[in-house]
């Protein structure tokens, strides 16, 4: 039996056009053999060589591959290689473990840059965008239809999703909004005090929170927290064939999985937005009190003057749009998962990055529209 801790030796000897190989050729000495033989044959001038293996005692499959590799290296130099002799079992191994002469090692073709760009663009338009529009249409259709058929929904699923997506995110949303309001006010306070326009801190904080930060903060937090969870859950269902199972049971997977999440997010995100508005303004109120000597009463009086219903409405409309974006993006990426566990991780990251980006883009567009 071969002992791999003790590496058996090979010996080679080149005479004219014959390379005599003896001893053992296996995983432990294959690399040294290759280096030595290529060095010996560096100045080899003939157009053919015979590798004589009559005295080769042992060869493993890696040794066979090494001989094959040597053959291909010499082929590149237009040197024809012939393996000659060998014991019966060695010949059998060469036959079993060799790559056939006819088999060419296939190399992955490198796609030219512009061809790749064109293909990616085509794939985006024909594949991704189309799938997204189909999903969006499906979600719109079923979310409206199911409003009138509450019996078709799973019992308690809307409540579960509302708790998971909205209620469980409450404390982090409140804390972050309070901090944002506080920081926004601190940054503005010094400038406004220099201008003697202390009271305008109220307008600044209220409008910024109501129409921008109020809807944006919860949306970003929910996209990071629940958007990723939605993508991961759906992706796992996809790669473990649960989605196929639903389909073959005659259940629409989008209706079954995505619609409760849409309801849960659409209902809870506006509430989170309102609470974020209140906490953010409260943060600003505290800074105004301590830094600018504006009492709570004065702050509230000014707030009622500067705040319009329109600002509150804009914030709520934004939060509804953000809710749809978060669930649709998470579901879209989840449904496109492939390649097992690794694919789940990949689409989850993509879902979070894309949904946060889309939230910002949508915010800018709505900001321009409602200006």
């Amino acid at each position, binding site marked *: 039996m071969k002992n*791999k801790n003790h590496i058996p030796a090979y010996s080679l000897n080149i005479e004219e056009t014959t390379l005599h190989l003896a001893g053992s050729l296996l*995983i432990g000495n294959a690399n040294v053999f290759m280096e030595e033989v290529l060095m010996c044959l560096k100045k080899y001038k003939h157009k053919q060589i015979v590798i004589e293996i009559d005295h080769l005692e042992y060869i*493993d499959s890696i040794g066979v591959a090494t001989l094959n590799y040597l053959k291909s290296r010499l082929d590149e130099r237009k040197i024809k290689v012939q393996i000659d002799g060998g014991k019966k079992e060695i010949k059998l191994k060469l036959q079993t473990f060799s790559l056939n002469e006819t088999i060419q090692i296939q190399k992955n073709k490198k796609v030219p840059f512009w061809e790749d760009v064109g293909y990616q663009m085509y794939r985006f338009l024909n594949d991704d965008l189309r799938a997204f529009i189909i999903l969006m249409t499906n979600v719109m259709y079923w979310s409206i239809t199911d409003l009138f058929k509450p019996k078709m929904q799973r019992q308690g699923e809307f409540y579960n999703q509302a708790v998971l997506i909205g209620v469980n995110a409450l404390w982090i949303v409140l804390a972050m909004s309070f901090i944002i309001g506080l920081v926004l006010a601190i940054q503005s306070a010094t400038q406004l005090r220099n201008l003697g326009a202390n009271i305008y801190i109220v307008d600044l904080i209220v409008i910024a929170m109501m129409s921008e930060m109020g809807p944006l903060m919860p949306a970003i937090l929910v996209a990071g927290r629940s958007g990723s969870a939605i993508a991961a859950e759906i992706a796992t269902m996809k790669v473990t064939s649960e989605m196929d199972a639903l389909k073959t049971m005659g259940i629409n997977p989008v209706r079954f999985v995505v619609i409760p999440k849409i309801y849960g997010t659409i209902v809870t995100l506006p509430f989170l937005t309102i609470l974020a508005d209140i906490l953010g303004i409260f943060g600003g109120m505290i800074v105004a009190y301590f830094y600018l000597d504006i009492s709570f009463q004065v702050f509230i009086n000014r707030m009622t003057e500067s705040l319009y219903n329109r600002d509150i409405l804009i914030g709520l409309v934004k939060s509804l749009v953000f809710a749809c974006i978060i669930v649709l993006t998470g579901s879209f990426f989840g449904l496109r998962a492939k390649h097992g*566990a690794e*694919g789940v991780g990949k689409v989850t990251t993509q879902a979070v990055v894309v949904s946060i980006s889309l939230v910002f883009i949508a915010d800018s567009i709505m900001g321009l529209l409602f200006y």
Partner: protein
Amino acid sequence: MREIIKIKSLSASLGGRNILSDISFNVYDKEITVILGRSGAGKSVLLKHLLGLMDIQEGEVVIFGKDIAEMQEEEQKRLYFQMGVFYQNGGLLNALTVGENIALPLEQNSNLSHELIDHIVWSKLKLVNLLNAYYLYPSQLSGGMLKRAALARAIVMDPLLLFCDEPGAGLDPISLVSLDKLILNLREQLGMSIVVVTHEVSSIFRIADRIVFIDSGQVVFQGTLEEALQAQNKQVKNYFDTAK
């Protein structure tokens, strides 16, 4: 005949439940030992003990003359270099292509050049008839292809000892026959000692040199295939009769 694996009075329990009790048998050099038994008999737990994936609670497992319970990390690593494992569900890394998966043990544990490793990988892929899968990811393979890719990875280092966990499960009869031929070739030509856990009776007839039958965590029979076919033990008799 030289023993490659010696198992002496191995017992194991999980959560207070006895899974293996007093298991003793040997695996011999250049032989194919088939471990048989019904589902839940304790085969997988036994395999995990042989692979050093579970701590030995009672008894002794000696591989290549060394007790695996007393092995240091380095010794265990050296042992793993001489062992190949063909997992039931492949155990291929999803993030790597099939080619990269097969190359991985050589890249990590040998000083071979990348070009030579590449050549070895192609030759192993040819051996398992999977030349078109080099650049594919495991998730893009069918069940049978996945099995063959996993076998290619298990044998890439030419191990002295090969463990196969349900190699034939999910394979069509033609693929199963060629897989069995390959296992026989590995034993004949590379002198591998092979331990196979399987339910496929047709496979057992083709490849088994020695059979170890486990029932309720105990070895109820061990011997050659001929002896197994004539065994009076009720479970063994039932197993082969039902399979016929």
